[in-house]
């Protein structure tokens, strides 16, 4: 069928800069896995096929003479506010294929980003601000259940006391920023290892996602791994559950609430197959629900099965997508025995999701977070679990605002990928990621060196942590604990009454 689709990007090659016919260059040809660039020897010049371009900018970055520019094609149909170029393109694509549209990365349609409508406070006169360069500033975060009260008993000497209360297993991270679940299979081995190495160096945690944890990484990186168990149960056995410091039961994901996932057979290489424990080349299908969880009671059973399998030594996370009744669901999750809830908002990333789901299902994490924190407090069970906010955390201020709204910590996924090279071209599902992140093609994965990838991640998280300290100091706080759920440090701007109400904050100036 003749395709009616127009190219999404324009390629501009500065002929005066391009090395052209010298066969020694052709960097753009080698860098592009989509086959956009080619050297036409009959004409003796470079030619391009812009319709294959995803706009990932790899060729632009790696062109040695800076001769290339890739820009979004300007709207090329008659301007129409209703029938935008994107809508027209989607319809044409579906008319030609009859299939569900896929997209990588999180929702990009611009549903209100509440972080941008929240402003942080700073001390002036009445409470001195603190300079984090001179004063100690504590970002250390404890994740997991906290006892209702502490009781002490008399120790050996008269002035000695011992803790009588049993402290349940919990996690200690040096900064309230954790790497969100990204499975080996959806991302490449070097990308996965970069996250593990960075988490280890930073004293924080990475999350294996549902693709298992390769055996050779368990010894060095198990101590900074959250191992995930999802509806596909890939790579899950007792040894895996015990190989990390915590186990996360994934119920839902912000980018695609309520649906499962299909890792296409092309991405199931022999190594991915070994880690997931499924035959090579077979689709890895994660059903929409866990078929042993049809109720809160069933969830409780799986939580406790995991606790049994790990001898009650590891906290259990339950991750859900932020949806309409998140608060009531979260209450059920805590009562089911979860130690930590991960809330993944509408804008959360993904390797692949149906576009229509990504753009239309779920709610922003800011609203869900505020509602969940409120609900758990009002029911007097907030201490029984920690909350991790995920889905569209773009900078350190988003982390600080999430914590002020009630989160204990934040998960970052997309931001970590961007640090490693991702440019959000949203073509993860093609398996041809030119940045070596979201692909299993060895010629592409080799482009990412875990040492260098982890350095970028370490730099990013250190920079954000420093910025969080600056913000804390400005508020006159010297520990992240003092910001947690401290909504008085937040004011809303450009929000309606109901939004302020859900967020539990005042408007700016109030």
């Amino acid at each position: 069928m003749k395709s009616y689709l127009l190219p999404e990007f324009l390629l501009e090659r500065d002929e005066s800069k391009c090395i052209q016919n010298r066969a020694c260059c052709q960097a753009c040809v080698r860098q592009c896995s989509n086959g956009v660039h080619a050297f036409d020897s009959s004409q003796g010049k470079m030619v391009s096929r812009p319709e294959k371009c995803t706009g990932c900018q790899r060729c632009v970055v790696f062109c040695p003479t800076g001769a290339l520019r890739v820009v979004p094609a300007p709207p090329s149909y008659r301007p129409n506010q209703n029938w935008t170029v994107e809508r027209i393109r989607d319809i044409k694509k579906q008319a030609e294929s009859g299939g569900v549209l896929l997209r990588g990365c999180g929702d990009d349609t611009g549903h209100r980003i509440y972080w941008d409508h929240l402003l942080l406070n700073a001390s002036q006169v009445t409470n001195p601000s603190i300079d984090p360069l001179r004063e100690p500033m504590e970002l250390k975060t404890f994740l997991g259940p906290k006892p209702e009260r502490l009781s002490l008993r008399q120790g050996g000497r008269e002035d000695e006391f011992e803790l009588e209360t049993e402290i349940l297993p919990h996690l200690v991270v040096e900064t309230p920023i954790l790497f969100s679940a990204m499975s080996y299979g959806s991302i490449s081995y070097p990308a996965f290892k970069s996250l593990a190495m960075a988490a280890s160096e930073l004293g924080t945690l990475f999350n294996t996602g549902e693709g298992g944890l390769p055996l050779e990484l368990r010894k060095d990186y198990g101590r900074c791994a959250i191992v995930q168990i999802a509806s596909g149960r890939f790579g899950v056995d007792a040894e895996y559950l015990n190989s990390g410091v915590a186990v996360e039961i994934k119920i839902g994901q912000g980018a695609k609430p309520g649906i499962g996932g299909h890792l296409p057979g092309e991405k199931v290489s022999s190594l991915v197959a070994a880690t997931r424990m499924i035959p090579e080349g077979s689709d890895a299908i994660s059903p929409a629900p866990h078929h042993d969880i049809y109720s809160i009671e069933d969830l409780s059973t799986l939580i406790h099965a995991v606790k049994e399998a790990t001898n009650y030594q590891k906290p259990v996370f339950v991750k859900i997508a932020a949806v309409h009744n998140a608060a009531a669901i979260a209450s059920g999750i805590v009562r089911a025995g979860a130690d930590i809830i991960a809330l993944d908002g509408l804008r959360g990333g993904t390797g692949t999701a149906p576009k229509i789901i990504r753009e239309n299902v779920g709610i922003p994490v800011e609203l869900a977070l505020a509602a969940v924190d409120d609900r758990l407090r009002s029911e007097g069970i907030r201490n029984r679990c920690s909350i991790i906010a995920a889905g569209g955390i773009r900078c350190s201020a988003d982390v600080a605002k999430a914590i002020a709204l009630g989160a204990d910590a934040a998960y970052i996924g997309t931001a970590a990928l961007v640090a490693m090279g991702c440019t959000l071209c949203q073509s993860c599902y093609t398996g041809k990621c030119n940045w070596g992140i979201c692909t299993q093609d060895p010629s592409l994965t080799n482009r990412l060196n875990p040492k260098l990838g982890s350095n970028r991640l370490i730099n990013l998280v250190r920079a954000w942590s420093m910025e969080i300290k600056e913000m804390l100091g400005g508020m006159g706080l010297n520990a992240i604990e003092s910001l947690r759920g401290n909504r008085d440090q937040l004011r809303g701007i450009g929000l309606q009454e109901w939004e302020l109400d859900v967020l539990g904050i005042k408007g700016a100036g109030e």
Partner: protein
Amino acid sequence: MMTETCQMTKMEIKMKTVEIDSAGLSYRELNDLMRESMLDGAEKIILKNVTGQKFIGTRLYFPKASKTVDSKKLEIEIFGTPGNDLGAFLHGHSITVFANAQDGVGNTMENGEIVVHGRAGDVVAMAMRGGKIFIRDSLGYRAAMHMKEYEDKTPVLVIGGTAQDFLGEYMAGGIVILLGIGDQEHRANFIGTGIHNGVIYIRGQLEEEQLGKGVIIQELDEHDHQVLKNCVGEFVNHFGAELDVKAEELLQGEFVKLVPASNRPYKAVYAN
């Protein structure tokens, strides 16, 4: 000298078999005792008066590299009715139940064997990755869902009677056999929807409408007959006397073999 050796052996045998009265124990207490027994070197654990305690066998994972205890496998006998998730994540031990079992038998089980002298509930062998489960009678809904195999690990589920709807949904590997003993009618619908690996053998009659999407019926070949001979043989070893059946009789019946039409069932769903 002789006497002493004999006594030693006797002592050892005694030490290696532990009997636990489960009456009035919570599942956690019972599983604590089982784990302690394992760490003390027990080889066989007999549970008496079991009344619905969950997760039996789940806490018996012990890292292979341990110096004190090797990862030897335990034999567990259960008298009374075990609760949900019997043998969840089971790490190679063998469990025999002399009663009915409930939901979630062998959930995400890795290896070992579970033998139930009775019936079992729903979601049996969910996401099972290895080992064998033998159920003497019938079981409930959603059995063998998302069972999967890898290399030498092929999970096996053999059911004496029949199963209910959604049997083998999303199956990604393994062998499921329904024997329909006593001319049991197979009434399950949506069998094997989304199956992309593995095989289901059903002894008896089956209508095409009972099959889910993506399942096809295939003729049995030599390999299938060998698989059936082995698995049915083991089934009869466990229950032949109780059920008064012989392997040859069972193998003479008509078997329907169900396999996936493709190992990429959803490939055509997407546009890109």
